[in-house]
């Protein structure tokens, strides 16, 4: 089963929860950091990286001598990555989403595949657990293509049927966040009991609910703010699976790159219980696909 740890708001504790769940997970497990713009799960799990590979997106390049300016490519492109200016066919590589449509429709074979570097995919071992992460190239604007490459690397491990996967998702509710969680069996939404936390939790629920994946909520920094997050969860039918207390010592442990269950043994039962609940939700969803 695949579990995604996500949130609308950034800085609510996705990585904190992912790392502690990794510690508490009983079944064979792999971990994946898909927050490719700012990956940080490795700082907590300290994996041994075996290899890093550059990842690329296929983009068009033009052979101007063959182009007849028929504009079939530029009319097809929805992203203005290819623009026919009458006497010049212009390609804007950074705008390209890599669909390959222009290469397919060109009747003159004037377009040839080229590559845009997306960043790198790294993998290795964190103890018994496999570890996968992406790191976006500085200046690259699109993260979903690199995220797909990280997932593809995990699939090539050949262990996906035997091992669970926890995905540390990027914050937000746009394409990167949806791409991270879309093929999960269960989503753990991390929030905080503040107006900010509530506002972005609502957005996340709205964005992810159409996916039909069961969701549960972890309230971090429990003790600050108010009860509005809990009211929302009960109205929306979202189970609150755990409440992590607001405490200075936990913040210090995080700042020192420590996994909470190691730094604060009192939290071990909380994360064991959370892991059990999420595994149960994920396995149920896997048995009855679509019935979420």
């Amino acid at each position, binding site marked *: 089963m695949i579990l995604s740890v996500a949130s609308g708001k950034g800085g609510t504790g996705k990585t904190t929860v992912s790392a502690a769940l990794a510690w508490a997970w009983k079944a064979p497990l792999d971990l994946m950091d898909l927050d490719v713009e700012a990956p940080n799960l490795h700082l907590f799990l300290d994996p041994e990286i075996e290899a890093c590979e550059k990842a690329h997106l296929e983009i068009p390049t033009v052979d101007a001598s063959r182009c007849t300016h028929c504009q079939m490519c530029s009319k097809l492109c929805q992203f*203005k990555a290819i*623009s026919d*200016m009458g*006497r010049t066919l212009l390609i*804007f590589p950074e*705008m390209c989403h890599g669909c390959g449509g222009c290469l397919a429709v060109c009747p003159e074979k004037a377009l040839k595949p080229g590559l845009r570097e997306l960043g790198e995919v790294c993998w290795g071992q964190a103890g018994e657990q496999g570890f996968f992460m992406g790191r976006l190239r500085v200046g690259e604007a699109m993260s979903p293509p690199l995220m797909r490459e990280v997932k593809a690397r995990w699939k090539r491990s050949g262990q996906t049927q035997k091992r669970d996967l926890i995905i540390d998702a990027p914050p937000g509710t746009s394409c990167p966040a949806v791409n991270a969680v879309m093929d999960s069996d269960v989503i753990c939404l991390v929030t905080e009991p503040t107006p900010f936390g509530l506002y972005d939790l609502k957005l996340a629920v709205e964005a992810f609910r159409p996916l039909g994946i069961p969701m549960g909520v972890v309230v971090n920094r429990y003790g600050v703010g108010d009860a509005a997050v809990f009211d929302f969860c009960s109205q929306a039918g979202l189970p609150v699976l755990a409440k992590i207390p607001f405490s200075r010592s936990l913040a210090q442990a995080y700042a020192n790159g420590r996994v909470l269950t190691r730094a604060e043994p009192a939290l071990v039962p909380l994360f064991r219980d959370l892991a059990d609940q999420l595994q149960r939700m994920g396995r149920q969803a896997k048995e009855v696909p679509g019935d979420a």
Partner: protein
Amino acid sequence: MKSIAVSAEGPSMDDPVDPRFGRAAGFLLVDPDTLATEYIDNGASQARAQGAGIQAAETLARAGVQVVLTGFVGPKAFAALSGAGIQVVQNLDGLTVRQAVEKFKNNAVTPSSAPNSPGGRN
């Protein structure tokens, strides 16, 4: 005489030059001899998440424009305008369309050889 387009906040010669090229409200096509004008709405470019400058350049190329007078042009829009053989005059923000055209007619402007804005989603 050359066909001029001025990025404009509105359809009249006395409207301000829109400082943004790609996301300008519209373009005033001006015949510099007769000062006859035609307004092209740029709403289609404004609505784009990205590629506004490229779209605007395509619009002007289709309209047969040879010179564009504007404020700031990003690198992709500049490449598109250059590809279409359109001359670019930047940094005319703060003027009205009429003042910009007068300046151009008096040869008091210099066509740019490079974009003057980082561009992209602004």
